[in-house]
């Protein structure tokens, strides 16, 4: 068996491992093994590529692997569980940029003018990879709070984006018909590069922070397609298969996430969702008038101490203040006090689907206590107390009542139907999507202001004092 046959055979095995890996990642019981299978496939693909006869010098490969490996390892080990979503966005951006560079490197190879096909796929790899890179970085900025989570809209935005797309197409066509050579070729290439980078930012800019999970999923799909395009550039089958799998399965995952929010993908991407925060206050019939009623930790304890059915609705605020361990402690105290505690998880609570599940699992909250939105909502009127911890849009009754609200139609957890609602919140600001929450104004709602972790600790210490007394 010659080397090339061996390499291609190994690529087939790697592809099979990727396929099984992805499939197994979709089920709870097999997910972790699936991830390991797919990483085994990756290792195999990397190792056999090193025996390719194209690869003659190793020192630069070792430099790249060393630097990348160290950074990757540090990222994965040091990052806090709460920062996972932005980490995924960042890693995704690097992948996109790598595909772009693979396309560029092929163009930079000394040689003749490019064929129409190679030129076209280089354009695709560069433009998809470029959009993925800057788009992911921008999403990272929004998620990590370095940039405002609010949608950024400016006049003529659609026109600017349209012009950029036209410019991209023009640069791409010029690059291809010149075969990347002559006076026009390189200029067209750099124009393409610049426009792709700008477009990645202007496309993500108008999308509100609350929709970032969908955006990341979509960018993940794009980075797969960028790898796939890079595969066509260097005529490599494993890149094409694996990239294409990620690209298309990413589309399905994106659609699943949109469905969880009862929105269409087009609506997420182009509506500037949540930008008009002042939803014509007072004019619509669904509006609730009222004021914010604060509550102290002592009074919260009194309410909880008497409660028999308690539901906890966690949101991003819990992640920010790292309150998941205290929440679990408090839940145990409530259970010891004879109450039944449930955790109601909204499909898009936090910054990513499953974000809350991960955090609560980390804090050893028993799996049976986690309930999904659809099963908890019918029981909501029976609940004595709903504790909303740093959740906002996912419990906003405006989504069900107020047709003028930008989140109208999104399924929510009906926390407002509980007898008493206690909302833990840092301050009086609006939620991540920038929309005022009518839940906070309801008659049966009390606001417990302050850092969620500190507030819960205060309540928990009241319980401890009672136990000791």
């Amino acid at each position: 068996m010659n080397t090339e046959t061996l390499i291609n055979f190994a690529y087939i095995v790697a592809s099979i491992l990727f396929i099984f890996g992805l499939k197994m990642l979709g089920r709870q019981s097999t997910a972790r093994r699936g991830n390991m299978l797919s990483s085994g496939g990756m290792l195999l693909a990397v190792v056999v590529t090193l025996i390719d006869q194209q690869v003659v010098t190793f020192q630069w490969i070792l430099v790249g692997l060393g630097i990348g490996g160290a950074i990757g390892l540090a990222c994965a080990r040091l990052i806090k569980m709460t920062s996972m979503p932005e980490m995924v966005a960042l890693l995704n951006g690097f992948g996109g940029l790598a595909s772009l560079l693979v396309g560029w490197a092929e163009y930079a190879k000394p040689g003749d003018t490019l064929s129409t096909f190679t030129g076209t796929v280089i354009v695709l790899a560069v433009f998809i990879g470029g959009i993925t890179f800057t788009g992911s970085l921008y999403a990272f900025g929004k998620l990590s709070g370095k940039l405002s989570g609010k949608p950024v809209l400016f006049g003529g935005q659609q026109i600017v984006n349209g012009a950029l797309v036209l410019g991209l197409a023009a640069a791409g066509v010029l690059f291809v018909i010149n075969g990347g050579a002559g006076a026009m070729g390189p200029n067209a290439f750099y124009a393409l590069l610049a426009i792709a980078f700008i477009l990645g930012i202007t496309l993500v800019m108008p999308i509100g922070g609350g929709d970032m999970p969908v955006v990341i999923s979509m960018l993940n799909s794009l980075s797969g397609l960028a790898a796939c395009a890079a595969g066509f550039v260097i005529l490599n089958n494993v890149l094409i298969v694996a990239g294409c799998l990620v690209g298309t399965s990413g589309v399905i995952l994106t659609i699943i996430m949109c469905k969880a929010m009862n929105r269409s993908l087009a609506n997420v991407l182009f509506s500037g969702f949540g930008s008009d925060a002042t939803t014509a206050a007072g004019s619509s019939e669904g509006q609730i008038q009222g004021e914010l009623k604060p509550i102290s930790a002592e009074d919260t304890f009194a309410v909880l101490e008497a409660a028999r059915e308690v539901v906890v609705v966690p949101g991003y605020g819990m992640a920010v203040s790292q309150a998941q361990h205290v929440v679990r402690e408090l839940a145990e105290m409530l259970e010891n006090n004879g109450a039944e505690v449930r955790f109601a998880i909204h499909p898009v609570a936090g910054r990513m689907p499953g974000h809350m599940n991960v955090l609560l699992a980390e804090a050893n909250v028993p799996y049976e206590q986690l309930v999904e939105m659809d099963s908890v909502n019918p029981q909501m009127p029976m609940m004595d107390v709903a504790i909303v911890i740093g959740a906002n849009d996912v419990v906003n009754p405006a989504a069900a009542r107020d047709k003028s609200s930008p989140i109208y139609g999104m399924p929510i957890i009906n926390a407002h139907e509980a007898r008493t609602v206690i909302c833990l919140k840092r301050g009086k600001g609006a939620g991540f999507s920038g929309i005022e929450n009518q839940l906070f104004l309801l008659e049966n709602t009390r606001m417990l202001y302050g850092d969620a972790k500190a507030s819960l600790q205060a309540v928990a210490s009241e319980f401890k004092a009672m136990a000791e007394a």
Partner: protein
Amino acid sequence: MELMLLLFIFVLAAFLGFELIAKVPSQLHTPLMSGSNAISGITIVGALLAAGADDGSTLTTVLGTTAVALATINVIGGYLVTDRMLGMFKKKDSGKKGGDA
């Protein structure tokens, strides 16, 4: 002909990708995204070929080496982050199945 074959596997892989995942419980959406993100780091293969080629072009080597580093971050970081997330679910009794999303 080779091009046609590659297009052929591209189309088949696309259909496979569309069918591969369905009905994923919502708590697995993030790990699935992160895990498939690691797979898109397969572009490392292209990066290795570019960085290891001896074609006398400094630019190619620079681009290739940078690509290797970036793709390696994507691959190593992606798999480890996914594993860490999934490890959080492990402590639960495995008899319980995740609810439908």
